[in-house]
């Protein structure tokens, strides 16, 4: 690991100023991804700005009936928060599906959004990788890519974004709050992560020196139910091969609000707009769910070894939608 200086500011402005004054600096939250990547020689910041002393860990209701989750709120605390469990069960379940209790006690909202891909070539500093070393190539495309993308990948990168939490946030229409030297801005979670295109080095639209201050969720649609389901290689403590977050309302046997997002399939949480189009106003039947999932996954372009993800994601979506609909029909 490269030597680095360490500071722990107490004010948000100070953290942003410190970053601006030191090229290559990094914010440190739970450290569960950054420290790991520093050990691997994938990251080597000259300065770590510890943001755990900033007043950014609150989870509180907004005036609009939604919820604001501070950037340094721990994944475990957010998952266990009564308002999250009752109003945003998909978020609670997604957080609980991720990592381990120990890791979730350290991991934060901001750090979780900004965690890097688990592509084995990205994590091995001795290998080429366009994401880590732009222009060096993408060995995953012809190499080990069973866990990688089937949607939205490019010739330059086929990585997936590993976060479970972000998938639920995308389905919940959450927004990321950012603050940098140029001021504050807000970006929908579903537009925060990028597709790789020819710039796979950029995971998200965050600018260097911008700090995530938190995430804001709108009030859930009335009568909505949500869930998160994850398929992985072992029963627990593994990244998603495919996952689904869904929020649904059903009235008189017809679907009203429908939000669906896939994880483990792309470089970003994949908000399934084509599937939602099919779902809205349609009868709440297995036939509808299958048509919806197929409409979305028609765009899939599996690689040599990850074609299994397409039917896996389809079946996950159908089963989650079926379970939610059978629990939400307000006539039932």
């Amino acid at each position, binding site marked *: *690991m*490269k*030597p*680095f*200086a*360490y*500071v*722990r500011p107490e004010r948000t402005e100070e953290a942003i100023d410190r970053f601006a004054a*030191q090229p290559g600096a990094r914010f*440190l939250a739970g*450290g*569960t991804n950054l*420290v*790991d990547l*520093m*050990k*691997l020689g994938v990251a080597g910041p*000259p*300065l*770590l700005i*510890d943001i*755990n002393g900033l007043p950014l860990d609150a989870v509180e209701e907004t005036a609009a009936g939604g919820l604001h989750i501070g950037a340094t709120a721990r994944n*475990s605390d957010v*998952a*266990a928060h*009564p308002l999250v*469990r*009752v109003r945003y*069960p998909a978020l*609670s*379940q997604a957080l*609980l*599906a991720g*990592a*381990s*209790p*120990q*890791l979730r*006690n*350290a991991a934060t909202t901001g750090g979780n959004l900004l965690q890097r891909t688990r592509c084995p070539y990205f994590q091995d500093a001795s290998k080429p990788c366009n994401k880590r070393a732009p222009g060096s190539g993408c060995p995953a495309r012809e190499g080990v890519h069973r866990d990688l993308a089937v949607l939205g990948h490019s010739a330059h990168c086929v990585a997936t974004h590993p976060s479970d939490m972000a998938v639920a946030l995308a389905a919940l229409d959450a927004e990321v709050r950012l603050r940098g030297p140029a001021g504050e801005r807000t970006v929908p979670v579903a537009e925060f992560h990028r597709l790789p295109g020819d710039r796979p080095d950029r995971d998200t639209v965050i600018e260097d020196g911008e700090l995530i201050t938190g995430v804001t969720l709108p009030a859930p649609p009335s009568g909505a139910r949500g*869930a998160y389901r994850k398929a992985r290689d072992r*029963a*627990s*403590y593994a990244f998603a091969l495919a996952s689904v977050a869904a929020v649904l309302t059903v009235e008189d046997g017809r679907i009203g609000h429908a939000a669906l997002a896939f994880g483990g399939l792309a470089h970003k949480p994949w908000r399934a707009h084509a599937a939602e189009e099919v779902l809205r106003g349609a009868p709440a039947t297995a036939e509808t769910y299958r048509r919806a999932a197929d409409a979305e996954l028609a765009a899939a372009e599996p690689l040599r070894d990850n074609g299994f993800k397409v039917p896996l994601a389809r079946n996950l979506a159908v089963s989650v939608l079926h379970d939610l609909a059978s629990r939400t029909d307000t006539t039932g």
Partner: protein
Amino acid sequence: MEPVDRTAPAGETPEGAPEAVSTLTLRVNGTARTLTVDNRTTLLDALRDHLDLTGSKKGCDHGQCGACTVLLDGRRVNSCLLLAVVCAGASVTTVEGLSDGDRLHPVQEAFVARDALQCGYCTPGQICSAVALLHEAADGQPSYVTPPERSPDGPVSLTPEEIRERMSGNICRCGAYPNIVDAIEEAAR
């Protein structure tokens, strides 16, 4: 050791920025300990190499196995992914700090009674993790297998399924899992 001995070689610290070493105080198993460490030092290495507390084990050093689990201000964490400097001012409990004098912690007792280990390498992490698990469940914190319909109040009852999910961050190479689950069930009673 004098702090100056551990200063990074000249030129490696960015100009005008703070130094690459830090002095911090941790409360470890009830005793305040002040140490000067290279900023790169993890909590695990600080415990093992600076404070001579070798109960916490280094399995993978990447957050994947749980052998390094300790309690930081009462919460279980992987000490291999936490920098020691970040823990300044915090209380750390390691497996060495769980017993009350010669009286083992009930979780330790249960591990012995149920023969919940083979080589023992993962055991300190398993035990620290289990101690925290009992608090989390008593506090009503859910896991991925807790029925979502359940009201957020009241303790979660520790079925074997709950224990397995909640212990999934602790890998045992010897496969002592069945007895580990038994031991935790016993300690939960």
